């Protein structure tokens, strides 16, 4: 153990091992406690098969000193994923693919005589456009006769939120922000439409499951209620197959949300749109950022200006329908550089969990090399009343370079925002915008977008 070691704060639940960083490199200590399971994972061919299928993160065994040598069996160095995102930031299909990946992993594990001992949605991350399990220590030796220990977690982390998103309201994914260990099944059972009780899968895995949890919570149970129970491998395969069927049956079509029907309403001519894309491309080319965060990306048109140049780009938007479209496009085109995620910029993902250190806030996962803030300033400054100096501070905290579009009051989109309210925004004009942002940034370039009243800026954060 060296002084630079730091244990990853979210890695504490499982005694099988833990993550730590040393001199900027991420390692995972595997404890002796987990030796037999780790050896089977590696020797059974399961690890190789899962890595080949892109379902498990690759790792190498590292010849470095363990952080806690007394407990250690091995130290492994996992390949880093592009970004850590959380279930409450996923669109419906991302969430569904993460659930199906978990079940596919469990099926392969069972073939190899192993089983997942947890089914946390936080163990799945999107890497190069696809869901991948990042916790190498999630496997245990399968013991025939035992029910699935991760069943409750799978239902709370995946099935309940997906069912609520598909059958009640897409916005209910946000319950995952509140409940760190997944949506309580009694709550899901209450919120889901009554007809879902008659659907076999949801009836059993959510409604009856919730009822069983309530019935047996701390109450006495007579042994004869489950006479000689035997949960054989066929039952386990049947359970996984049943869950897979339910998840596959859940669908959601992006419609009726905030922007889904708004795509036609534009005040950009084709020429202006093309010019804007050209300018964004020029700024990206000039800076050559290592990564880009496109804040308010809609379905990712401008994210792809950077993504197509091989730059990893996060494509954030508030609208789950836009993010859904964006993700479907990533899948269709097998794009590896775009990660679409849902975020409300007026209330970005906070730090959550034990000691507020298990899940990082949006800002903690930065800073970005380059931030795109295209057609968002009027939403933040006018719809959300954020004063310009606070906006400049916020963007300066988010990344080093900023490509920002100023949308003047005369713009028809701003007029729409002001139509139903009093104009209290006397400082909202181009001159003030430039003066205020110059406090935090150096403005390198700015250009009017042809055929519109808008202006695009390339700014660099000033050294503190």
């Amino acid at each position, binding site marked *: 153990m060296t002084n630079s070691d730091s244990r990853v704060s979210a890695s504490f639940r*499982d*005694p*099988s091992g833990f993550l730590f960083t040393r001199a900027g490199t991420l390692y995972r200590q595997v404890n002796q406690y987990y030796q037999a399971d780790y050896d089977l994972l590696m020797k059974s061919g399961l690890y190789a098969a899962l890595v080949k299928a892109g379902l498990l993160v690759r790792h190498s065994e590292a010849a470095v000193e363990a952080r806690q040598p007394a407990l250690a069996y091995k130290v492994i160095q996992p390949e880093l994923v592009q970004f850590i995102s959380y279930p409450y930031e996923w669109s419906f*299909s991302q969430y*569904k693919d993460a659930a199906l990946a978990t079940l596919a992993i469990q099926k392969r594990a069972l073939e190899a005589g192993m089983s997942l*001992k*947890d089914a946390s949605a936080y163990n799945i991350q999107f890497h190069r456009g696809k869901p991948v399990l990042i916790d190498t220590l999630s496997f245990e030796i399968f013991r025939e*006769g*035992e*029910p*699935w*220990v991760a*069943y409750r977690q799978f239902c709370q982390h995946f099935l309940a939120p997906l069912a609520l998103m598909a059958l009640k309201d897409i916005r209910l994914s946000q319950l995952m922000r509140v409940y760190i260990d997944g949506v309580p099944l009694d709550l899901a059972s209450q919120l889901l439409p009554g007809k879902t009780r008659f659907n076999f899968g949801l009836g*059993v895995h959510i409604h*009856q499951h919730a*009822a*069983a*949890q*309530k*019935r*047996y*919570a*701390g109450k*006495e*149970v*007579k042994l004869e209620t*489950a006479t000689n129970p*035997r949960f*054989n491998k*066929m*039952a386990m395969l*049947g*359970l996984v*197959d*049943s869950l*897979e*069927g339910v998840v*596959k049956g859940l*669908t959601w079509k992006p419609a009726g949300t905030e922007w889904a029907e708004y*795509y*036609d309403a534009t*005040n*950009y001519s084709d020429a*202006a*749109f093309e010019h804007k894309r050209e300018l964004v491309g020029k700024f990206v080319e000039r800076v050559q950022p290592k990564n880009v965060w496109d804040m*308010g*990306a*809609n379905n*990712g*048109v401008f994210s*792809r200006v950077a993504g197509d140049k091989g730059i990893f780009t996060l494509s954030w938007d508030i609208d789950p329908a836009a993010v859904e*479209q*964006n993700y479907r*496009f990533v899948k*269709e085109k097998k794009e590896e550089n775009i990660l679409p995620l849902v975020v409300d910029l007026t209330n970005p993902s906070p730090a959550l969990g034990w000691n507020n250190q298990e899940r990082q806030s949006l800002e903690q996962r930065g800073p970005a090399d380059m931030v795109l803030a*295209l*057609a*968002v300033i009027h*939403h933040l400054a006018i719809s959300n009343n954020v004063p310009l100096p606070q906006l400049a501070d916020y963007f300066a905290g988010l990344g080093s370079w900023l490509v920002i579009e100023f949308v003047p009051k005369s713009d028809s*989109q701003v007029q729409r925002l002001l139509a139903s309210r009093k104009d209290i925004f006397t400082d909202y004009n181009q001159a003030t915008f430039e003066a205020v942002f110059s406090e935090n940034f150096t403005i390198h370039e700015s250009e009017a977008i042809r055929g519109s009243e808008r202006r695009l800026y390339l700014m660099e954060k000033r050294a503190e």
Partner: protein
Amino acid sequence: MKMPFELLAPYLRPSLYLDPGSGSFLIQLLIAALLGGAFAIKIYWKKIKVLFTGKKPEEVPTPTEPEVTPMVTPEDPAQGDQNDK
């Protein structure tokens, strides 16, 4: 008096670090026969299908494949400014 823990004790072992939940365990035991049986039938049904169609199980399309909804192509300028909110 039997508590859930005693009933579940044979299944518990030191490597369990999550609380599987007594209700979550018991419901699996209750539906085990049903799910196992249904799965067995499904496998046999697939085998019978293979017998008649001559296709390997991988080639038999699963009816539960998620539907693909056609999406707007973001790069299509005809859609106007996708970013314009």
